[in-house]
Every structure is written in C-alpha cells, then in structure tokens.
C-alpha cells in the first residue's frame, strides 16, 4: 500500500460519516420516538443526575480542606503578607489636601509620581492622563479602594507570573510538558470564574487570599501560553547557531531563547495584569475588597450612580496598568 497519504484520506472520510450520523440521527429518530413514548420522554432525559459528580467533588474538597489545612493556611498567610506589604507601601505615599476656593481637593502624590513613569514608558499625554485618572478617583472618594485594587491586582499578577513564566519555559522546551499543560490551561480558561470562587472560600477563608487565588487561576494561562509560544517561535536557525557554538541547555535558554522570546513574554505579562484586574473586581463577591466591593454593594442596594462611579474608577486603573506594561516588551 503506497504511503501515508492514502491512509489519512481514509480516516478523514470515516470521520466525516461519523459527524454526519451524529447530526442526522436525532433528526431522523425524533418522530419515531415521539410516536412511541410521547413528548414527556424528552422532558425527562438529562434532568436526573446519574453520575453524582457534585457529591464526589464536595467530598473531595472537604477531604482536601481538612487534610492539607496547614498547607492552605501557610499559603493564605503568604498571600496576605504580600498583599498588605504592597498596600502599606502604596498607602505610605502621602496624599495632600489643599483647599481650592474653600473646598478641600485631594492631590495624591502617587498621581504626580506616575506622570514621569508613564512619560518614560509611553508618552507625555499618557502621563497626564494617568495623573488625571488618579486625581479623579481620589476626588470621587474612592482612594482607599483604588489602592486596595492596585495591591490585589499586583499581588495576583506577581504570583501568576512567578508560576506562569517558568511553566511556560518548561512547556516551550519540552513537547511532553506542553501536552500536559495545554489541557489544564484550557480547563482553567473555560471554567466559569464563579465556580472556583466557592472552593477558594472553603480552602482559604474569606478576604483577600481566596480572591487572589481565584485571580491567579484566572490570570495564569496567558503568561504560560505566551511564554511557551515565544520560546517555540525562536527561528530554528538561531537555536542551531546557539548549539553550533557550544551552548548548554541553560546557556541556550538564557542567551538565545529567552531574549528572543522577550516581546512575547512581555505581552503575556501585560495580559496577566489586565486579567488580574478584571478578576479582582469579581473576587469582591467573596470579600476581596477594593473597588469591586463598591460595585457589589451598589448592586445589592440598587445604587446606580455609586456603581457607575466605582466602575469608572476600575476603567482608569485598567488603562493606567495597561499603558504601564504594554510597551515594555517593545523596547530594545
């Protein structure tokens, strides 16, 4: 039998029939079934849980929570420490309240400090926008919450990158690791976010820690994926050049692959930070605090205006975080 081409053609034909049958069978069988059993059959199908997966998961989570209690307590402690550390540092930057026309106006020093930074990484206009955004949120009366959101986001992004970039490197270096990691990432990205808020509360209690954990799960995949992609997209000839000059595994990684993958990795960093922010807002549902808790409170009390104000503050934080990290990868 000549070659592989013939075989592949056959497989594709079989799969075509298979797909046709799957789609056509219900259509053809529907009238037959309806005649024999009446419509109620279709109402019953699929509403009873034959496989008690929910019960199994409950038992599993309970077992994990009890068995690894010390472990989760330690993690909670570490996360809380990082978060309060960043928050304290941010709160340490003073905020002036000069009176303009007898009205006290808040002028956070952070808003001033961000101008030269954004000017450096982006443009002067971005710097001025950053100042305006922070000044605005401070005068909406949301300054403490804004700082909390910043610290939660940075904590989660920091942990996500700490785990995600090395995982991406391993996946980029080994097909086996990539094949293991990819379905896990797919699972993490497609599982509805509210679903893992529940076990997070059970394992890490209420407050910042479960919020950060849920955020890390949500924000980790792009860091892994883009690091993996960056390493895999290094031109073969460059890898060969590195090897031809006698690079070891690690030298090849640090002198050729990582520098070449830098723009892609930095895009992953940016994505991770942005996803962290969006999840941190949702994590307010389990008491993570910050601007998100303002939004949650507004929903509960039907306060349209307050909700919008908090939402706009989130947008400002988002734009500032994005502009601060977006161009880093493109700099030579």
């Amino acid at each position, binding site marked *: 039998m000549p*070659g592989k081409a013939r075989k592949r053609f056959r497989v594709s034909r079989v799969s075509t029939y298979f797909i046709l049958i799957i789609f056509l069978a219900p259509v053809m069988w529907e009238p037959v079934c309806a005649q024999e059993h009446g419509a109620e059959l279709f109402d019953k199908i699929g509403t009873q849980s034959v496989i008690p997966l929910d019960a199994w998961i409950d038992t599993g989570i309970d077992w994990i929570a009890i068995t690894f209690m010390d472990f989760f307590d330690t993690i909670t402690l570490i996360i809380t420490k990082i978060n309060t550390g960043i928050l304290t540092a941010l709160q340490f930057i003073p905020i002036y309240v000069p009176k303009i026309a007898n009205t006290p106006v808040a002028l956070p020093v952070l808003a001033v400090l961000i101008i030269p930074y954004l000017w450096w990484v982006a443009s002067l206009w971005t710097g001025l926008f950053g100042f305006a955004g922070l000044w605005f949120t401070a005068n909406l009366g949301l300054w403490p919450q804004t700082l909390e959101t910043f610290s939660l986001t940075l904590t989660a992004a920091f942990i996500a990158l700490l785990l995600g970039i090395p995982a991406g490197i391993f996946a980029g270096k080994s097909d086996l690791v990539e094949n293991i990691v990819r379905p896990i990432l797919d699972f993490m990205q497609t599982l509805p976010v509210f679903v893992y808020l529940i076990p997070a509360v059970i394992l890490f209690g209420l407050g910042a820690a479960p919020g950060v954990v849920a955020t890390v799960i949500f924000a980790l995949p792009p860091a892994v994926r883009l690091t993996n992609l960056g390493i895999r997209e290094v031109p073969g000839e460059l890898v060969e050049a590195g*090897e*031809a*000059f*006698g*690079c070891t595994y690690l*030298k090849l990684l640090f*002198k050729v692959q990582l520098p070449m993958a830098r723009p892609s990795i930095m895009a992953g960093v940016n994505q991770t930070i942005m996803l962290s922010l969006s999840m941190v807002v949702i994590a307010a549902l389990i008491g993570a605090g910050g601007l998100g808790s303002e939004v949650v409170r507004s929903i509960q009390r039907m306060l349209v205006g307050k909700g919008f104000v908090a939402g706009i503050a989130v947008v400002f934080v988002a734009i500032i975080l994005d502009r601060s990290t977006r161009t880093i990868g493109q700099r030579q």
Partner: protein
Amino acid sequence: MAAIGAQHVYKIFGEKPEIALDLLEQGKSKAEVQQETGLVTGVQDVSFELDSGDLFVIMGLSGSGKSTLLRCINRLVEPTRGQIYLEIDQKRVEITSLSRKALRDVREKQIAMIFQHFALFPYRTVISNVTFGLEIQGVGKKERTRKGREVLELVGLGGWARAYPSQLSGGMQQRVGLARALANEAEVLLMDEPFSALDPLIKVNMQDELLKLREKVRRTVLFVTHDLDEALKIGDRIAIMEDGQIIQSGTPEEIIVNPRTEYVAKFVEHADASGVLTAGTIAKVLTVNSNMSVNVDTQVTGTEPKLFAEELDITYCLSEDGRPLGCIKDGKTFPIRTLGENPETVDVKDVFIAAGADIPLRQIMDIRLNTSENPIIIVSKNGVFKGIISTHEILRGLLEKGRKDIQHKDNTRESGE
C-alpha cells in the same frame, strides 16, 4: 593525516531507522525505502576526507541532503550510522562517539558554522554577536572585545561594532556571521549556503572576499551550495550530491570535463566553464617531428631549432628539449614571449605569445583579445611545448567544456522526457 573526514555516514529520519538501513544495504533506492517504510533517507553512505586548509564544496539541489550532511558533522543532526572524525592536536577524535560535554567542547573550539539566513541575534550588537562563541567559552570581556574588533577589521566592518544587525545590509550581516565563526579560531568552518540569500552582485563580491580571506586565514572549509558557478569558482574540490549520496567528487575541472553521470552532465551543461577549464585541457595538441626543412632566422630564435610542429601555414620551431624558440609565418620568423600565470596586457602585434598550461580559459580569452590574430602557444610548467590555442579552440572549449570524447546527446531521449 586528514583534517576532517567522514566514513559511511547515513542519516535516516523517522523511527526505527535500522529497517531503512537494511533496505538501503540491499540496494533499494531512497524512493523505494520511503514507499515501503515511510522513512526518509537524508544522507546515504557518504565518505570524504579533507586535508587541512581545503575548501570542499558540497553541491546539490534542495532535498539532496547537503545541509543534512553538513549538520551531521557537528551533530546538529545526529547521524544514524557512520563515523565523522577530526584531527585535533595531531590526534584523531571521533566526533560521532563523543559525549555531550566533549561534543560541546569541540563545537566551542574546533568547528564553527555560518548560516544561510545569517542567524544573527537581533538583540545583540554586532560586536556582541561576533564574540558570542567566546562568551560561551567563558573568555573574559576585555579579551573578547579585543578579539572581536580584530576579526571585524578582517571582514571589513571595523566601524560597525556598536550597530545592531537590523541596521546592516544582507552582505554586511553575513560578514558578521563570518566574523563570528572566525572569532572562535576554529580549524573547521561549516558554511551552509552562506551567500544564497544575497543579491547576485553582492554574492559575487562575497565569494571574492572569501577567497581573499582564505589567503590571510587558512581554515578547512566545508561549503554547501546549490549554485554550480559558485562551487566551481571557490571550491578546491567539489562533491555533487543527489538523493543523499555523493555521486561525483573531484576538482572543478574534473567535474566539468568528465561528468560521471547524466545528472552531473546536465548540471554542468549551463555552467560557466571559462574560469575552470585550463589552457592545457582545451589546447590543440600538435605532433612534433624532427626532420623538417625550413628557413629559420636564427637571429630571432637564438639557437638552431631541432624540433618542429606545423599547423595551417605556421611552423612552430622548438629547441631540442621541446621549448618553443620562434614561429615561421609567411616565410618570416617571429619571436615568442612567454607570459606568467598573471599576464599583463600585451599589445605587441609582431610576436607570438606563449602561456602556461594551467592558466584558465578566461585569461586565454583575455590574451587573445589583446594580441594579434596568431594562435597562442601553450607550454607546460617546465616550458615544454604542448599545443596551441586559436579562436577555434576557445569557442569549442566554451561550448563543449573540453569534453572532446562526449558526443552530443541524442535528441530523441531529450524530447522524450
């Protein structure tokens, strides 16, 4: 002892290559093996041996396995079977049986490589690219920079050390690639179609540069190309590959004059032979006889000629040991001026020119253009008369590439394809 060599090297791509090796040993072709097993033969039973300082060109079309063979030498591609060996400090080191660590050592210091698309690191400056190999070896920064500048000077990029590769043209980028390979002071250079990505004019410049560079720094070079003219121009020896095998190897002239297979002949057909064919190959050999009665003006020839050769209406007078003394045309005796290997332009109309048998056809054409209509006398290295070249021989040399024995191919087979 050879500087580098290969013995019966095979490369089979795919799983369980032993099956393919067995089939190949039974005499099956690459295509048959692929049909039966799905395994692709990259390199099949290749052996060669290079002396120190040789420039060996591996020539073939894409898919002929030439790049794979090159990568087998520093084991970027692991050979399936066979040995590759290298002479290091008068000792024979078998590359194919080295440990990973020892192999890295050889790659660091003995074998450097140059790539088709330059493979420069875009995030590094030119000097930092050039010293990459030294950096891997752990050479100190000061020493690295010194060596890097020295090599950049050598390839004519002295002023570009701080530029980035993207700021350079293609030709300049490949000079950086060349400098990077030279900086390691490796004995063997592997060049994988180094000039194929360049514009034709720059390509020719780079070939000249390479030849010039070889006079300054003598390295053993393995040069892969798909361009026959390039191979003929720069190669000391050429190996022609087809389907993973070397089907002919030899000097450029041997390949032009005696193509061993139809495949090689087809290649060679359109090659520019004028730089490869030597005067000795295309010269018309004349019979020399001793008894001839001619009127010789001994004032021109110096001594009494003892041997004579005749062609058309010209008589060539030779001394007893075969050296040309003068020519007689229309009853008049002309003197002979011998040119060395690099002839200056001659505008003298009333002399005959003698040239060495080893000078290329292109120079003969040059001489012909700048002198009289008279045939050029060809002498061997020790000055003995070999034959003559007139316009007729030059044209025939260009058209038939010196293959006097090869008949023109029968047209029926050509049209049948």
